[in-house]
């Protein structure tokens, strides 16, 4: 009898503790690629998000409520990502972060839109923000923002009059390819050859021979990290002398690690880089490397920024209101002066696309070297 009373009391107080802890915390769902083909990018994002919310919680949380972060694994599978976003919504997420793969985002963003919950993604394919979804926000440039910069660079910086385009045939690659080709044509640059490749392709010999025979002045490569490294190696093997230009992935640290010497000389446009000459980014990179033992890639920076965006917008609103959050973030500019965690000043437009400083880089001696800083478009 007495034992049961004690047990009851313990049970009740535990329940109350759990209850009060839940009332004091806010749930955020992080739906991201933790296994499968996208695991390398997804884990970078996840680690940075965990690091950011760890810092935020240590500093007292958001509006003095602790963040309760739950990770959901999409397995780099679009159908599964939809199920995971549904689960995150069922669990009462205030905001959803991720995923990174555009092919996943396009499937699951229907759900967040229906539930009126903001979703901050790492995807770059153009159609994410052209569908008129008021709840979707990017953390990096979409191809529609970065490709005009690249096309201008190919024409004026590289002085190419014809370009061979190599791209990966999925949502990411196709979106980039379509945009860059139209931007190049607009500037009077000829497309010497247009080569589609597969996700996970191992042998690029025939593609490189096509590039060699095309007589293009420059090569534009828009592939995922592993495939970029294989292409660069093959290009070196065949002794092609044309400059290889790309967007973010081509100059990624992972590509440099995998391709070794062959990556030297690769150049192009990067939205975010751990080597950016921005003290806040450098400091973040140092913290991240100390904690996880690897240099953060651009996806880690995206995740970190996403977490701090949640904090800043909520504190600005002064309440946890998902609908108002989405409304407020459209047209908002967040400066590191107001929120150091945002790292670089960033503006969201009415579609959820971002505008931010970006960089032209070249791989020199196995390291990204920033050759030029491109200002925000709106400035």
């Amino acid at each position: 009898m007495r034992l049961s009373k004690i047990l009851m009391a313990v049970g009740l107080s535990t329940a109350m503790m759990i209850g009060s802890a839940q009332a004091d915390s806010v749930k955020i769902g992080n739906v991201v690629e933790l296994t499968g083909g996208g695991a390398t990018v997804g884990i970078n994002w996840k680690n940075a998000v965990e690091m950011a919310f760890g810092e935020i919680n240590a500093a007292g949380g958001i509006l003095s409520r602790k963040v309760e972060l739950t990770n959901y694994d999409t397995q780099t599978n679009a159908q599964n990502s939809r199920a995971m976003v549904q689960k995150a919504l069922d669990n009462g997420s205030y905001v959803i972060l991720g995923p990174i793969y555009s092919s996943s985002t396009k499937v699951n963003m229907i759900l967040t839109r229906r539930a009126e919950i903001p979703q901050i993604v790492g995807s770059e394919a153009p159609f994410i923000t052209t569908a008129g979804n008021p709840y979707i926000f990017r953390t990096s440039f979409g191809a529609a923002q970065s490709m005009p910069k690249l096309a201008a660079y190919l024409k004026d910086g590289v002085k190419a009059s014809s370009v061979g385009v190599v791209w990966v045939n999925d949502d990411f690659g196709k979106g980039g390819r379509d945009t860059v080709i139209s931007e190049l044509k607009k500037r009077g640059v000829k497309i010497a050859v247009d080569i589609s490749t597969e996700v996970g392709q191992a042998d690029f010999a025939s593609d490189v021979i096509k590039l060699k025979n095309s007589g293009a002045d420059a090569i534009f490569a828009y592939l995922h990290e592993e495939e970029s490294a294989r292409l660069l190696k093959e290009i070196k093997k065949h002794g092609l002398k044309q400059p290889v230009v790309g967007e973010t992935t081509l100059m990624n640290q992972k590509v440099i690690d995998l391709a070794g010497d062959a990556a030297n000389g690769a150049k192009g446009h990067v939205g975010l880089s751990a080597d950016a000459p921005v003290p806040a980014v450098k400091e973040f990179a140092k913290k991240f490397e100390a904690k996880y033992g690897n240099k953060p890639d651009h996806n880690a920076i995206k995740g970190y920024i996403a977490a701090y965006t949640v904090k800043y917008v909520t504190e600005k609103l002064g309440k946890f209101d998902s609908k108002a959050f989405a409304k407020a973030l459209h047209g908002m500019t967040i400066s590191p002066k107001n929120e150091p965690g945002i790292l670089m000043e960033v503006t969201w437009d009415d579609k959820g696309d971002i505008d931010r400083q970006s960089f032209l880089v070249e791989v020199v001696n196995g390291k990204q070297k920033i050759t030029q800083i491109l200002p925000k478009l709106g400035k």
Partner: protein
Amino acid sequence: MRLITIIASLAVLALLVVLPFNLKNYGIYILSLWMVYSIAAMGLNLTLGYAGQVSLAQAAFLGIGAYTTALLMKAGYPFLFGFGLSAGICFCVGLILGYPALRVQHHFLAFVTLGFNALVWLVFRNEEWLTGGTYGLMGFPRPSFFGIDTTNQVAFYFFSLTIFVLLAVILWWIVRSPWGRAFQALRENPIRANSLGVDIRRMTLLAFAIGAAYGGMAGSLFAPLVEFIDPQSFQLNTSLMLLLMVIVGGSGRFLGPVIGALLVVLLPEWLRFTEGMYLIIYASLVMVLLAFCPSGLIGLYERSVAALRARPSGSRGSEKP
């Protein structure tokens, strides 16, 4: 025995009716997905399990059904029209795919069907004018019946459940009909079946065609369930997943693919708490199961029931000196 089967089926059905009211949207979505995959796996079970024809093309039929329905619904046709046409198209394509099966068997047939799956996938991806290419198709509404809109997860669940039960009953009938016996005869010994007057040619083609039609009908449900389709969903790995469902559940057993699909769809969910370990556990479980019980989960169940029944008589026997 028959009464027990009927009571058990009714109990399971009652459970499936009650379940969605106790689940959140996510759980209901997963259950709907399970029913859709079950339909496709039931079709494959007919081709592979009953008639013994190895097919790695079930995802292609799932895709043909999904694209047919999505395109028709986008053009404003009612769902049931798309559903019927999906079944019809897949039946015909399955019939054509069955022809190579008349000439090649086993792993050769697996390669023929694998090639077909790759071909269909390439059509989905490259014929942009029709299929939307890599970007896929979206923006087709979920169907509504008698004024009930299935955009609601529960409504769509009951809609899937109705079709699932209907198709399961039809397959139950096929398997028990002379056709079903002929399929099994074909699997066990085609030459003997032929000598007994079974038209092997017709039965092989039919096994493919009916299996494919089930794949098409599953695809037809898949499109409005996910509300989005792209070529990725119908790649070879989906065919392999469906094959896994049939084999893990118990190939050639009526409930095999349904149990297999339940395991393949739900096990990752149950193992989620293990985080990074789940793929290792999952793969090991499948390997152990298939090494020790090649007849799948249903086979395991049958063996345990047989062992339990055998035990009393065995112990009685040992009591006697």
